[in-house]
C-alpha cells in the first residue's frame, strides 16, 4: 500500500508551513515602509512571487503536456492537471493583488499593459483548458486535448506579452539592470524570503494535487474494471 503523503512530501509541507508565517512577518513587520507608496507597497511581496510561481506552473504544464502526448502515461496528465489548477490559483492571486496595488500607485485599477494583459489571457486560457477537460466525455480524450491547449498556452502567453509590450508599456521594472540599488536591502531580503515561501507553497500544492489526481485516476480505473 502506497502512502498518500510520502515522507518527502511531509517534510516539504512542514517547511512550507513554517515558511509562510516567516514570509508574513517579513512582509508586514521586518520590511521598511516604502517612502512614496506607503504601506500598500507591501502587497508587492506577495504579488511578484505569485506571478513568478504562475510562470513556474506554466513551465510544469508545458513539460508535462509534451511528455504526456509522447508517452501517453496518465500520470503525466495528472501532473498537468495539477499544474493547470495551481497556475490558475496563482494567476488569480496576481490579478487580485495587482489592482489593489495599482489603484493607489498608478491611480487606476487596471491598464491594458503587457504583463497585465498576458496574465488575464493566461487566466482565461487556463479556465478554458479546465472546461475542455471537464466537457470531454472520456479521460483520454480530455487529457490529449488539454495537453494540446497546455502547449499552446505556454507559447501564447509569451507572444501576447511581446505584442502588448510593443503596443504600449507601463509596468514597473523591479529588476531592470542598474535599477537594483534602488531597492532597500531589507526589502530585497524579504522579497527573496517571500519568493522562497511561495515557491515551497507552489510545489507543495502541485505535489498534493498530483497525489489526489493519481488517486482519482486509480479509483476511476478500478471502477471501470468492476463495470467490465
Amino acid at each position, binding site marked *: 500500500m502506497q502512502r498518500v503523503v510520502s515522507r518527502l512530501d511531509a517534510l516539504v509541507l512542514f517547511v512550507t508551513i513554517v515558511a509562510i508565517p516567516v514570509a508574513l512577518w517579513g512582509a508586514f513587520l521586518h520590511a521598511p515602509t516604502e517612502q512614496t507608496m506607503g504601506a500598500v507597497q507591501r502587497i508587492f511581496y506577495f504579488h511578484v512571487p505569485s506571478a513568478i510561481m504562475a510562470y513556474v506552473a506554466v513551465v510544469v504544464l508545458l513539460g508535462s503536456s509534451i511528455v504526456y502526448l509522447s508517452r501517453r502515461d496518465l500520470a503525466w496528465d495528472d501532473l498537468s492537471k495539477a499544474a493547470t489548477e495551481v497556475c490558475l490559483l496563482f494567476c488569480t492571486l496576481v490579478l487580485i493583488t495587482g489592482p489593489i496595488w495599482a489603484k493607489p500607485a498608478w491611480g487606476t485599477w487596471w491598464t491594458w499593459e503587457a504583463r497585465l494583459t498576458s496574465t488575464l*489571457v493566461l487566466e482565461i486560457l487556463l479556465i478554458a483548458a479546465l472546461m475542455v477537460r471537464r466537457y470531454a466525455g472520456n479521460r483520454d480524450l480530455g487529457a490529449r*486535448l488539454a495537453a494540446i491547449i497546455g502547449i499552446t498556452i505556454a507559447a*501564447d502567453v509569451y507572444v501576447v506579452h511581446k505584442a502588448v509590450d510593443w*503596443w504600449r508599456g507601463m509596468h514597473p521594472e523591479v529588476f531592470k539592470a542598474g535599477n537594483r540599488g534602488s531597492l532597500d536591502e531589507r526589502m530585497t531580503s524579504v522579497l527573496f524570503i517571500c519568493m522562497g515561501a511561495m515557491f515551497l507553497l507552489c510545489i507543495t500544492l502541485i505535489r498534493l494535487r498530483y497525489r489526489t489526481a493519481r488517486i482519482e485516476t486509480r479509483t476511476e480505473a478500478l471502477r471501470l474494471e468492476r463495470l467490465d
Partner: protein
Amino acid sequence: MKTVGFWRAAWLVARKDLQLEWRTFDALAASVVFAVVVLLVFQFAVGGGPARQLSADALVPGVLWLAISFSSVVGIARSMDVERRGDTLAGLFRAPIDRGAIYAGKLIANAVRIALLEVILVPLAIVFFNASLGGAWLELIFVLALCSFGLCALGTLFGAIVSRVGRGEALLSTLLLPASTPLLLAGVTATGALFRGDGLASVSRWLGMAAGFGLLYFFVALATFEYVLEE
C-alpha cells in the same frame, strides 16, 4: 385535467434551471468568461492606444477586426459542427492519408471562407463608416491575408478541439479570441496605418509578428492535430 398555474409552472422551471446551474456552474462560468473575453477584444480593437479619436478612419480598423474575429469563430464552429454531426472526422482519421493534410485542408477551407467574408465585409465597412483608403487596396489585401491566415491556423486547431468535446461558439471564442490578441493588435494597427495614409513600412514589425504567429501555430497544429482526431 388539473394542471398547475402559470406562475407556479414558471417558478418550477426557473428553480430547475437554477438548481442545475448551482450544481454544475457551467452556463454561468462559461458566460462570465465569455463576457471578459468580449471586454478584452473590444479594448484592443477600439479602446485606447493609437485609435483614441473616434473619427471614421480610426474606428474602421477596430470594427473591421471585431467583425472578422467574431465571424471567423462562428464560421469555424459551423464547419466543425457539420463534421461532428456526421461523425466524418473519424472517417477522415481512418483514411490512409497524413493527418497533417487533414489539418491543412481544413485550414485552407476556413481561410477561403474568411477571405470571401472579407470581400463583402471590407467594402461595406468603408461605405457604412465613410472611410477612405486612398488606393492602398493591395496593401490592405496583404494585411488581411496575413492576419487571417494566423487566425485560421489557430482557429482550425481550436475548432477541432471544441468540436471533439461537443461545445459550440462560446468555448471556441473563449479559447481563440484571447489567444489571438497579438493578431488582433497587428491587424488593427496595420489596417489603421493604411487608413491614415501611412505605408506598410511603418508597421513592418507588426506584419512580421502576424506572420510569425501564423507560422508558429501552423507548425504546432501540424504536430498535434492527429492527437485531436484520435479515437
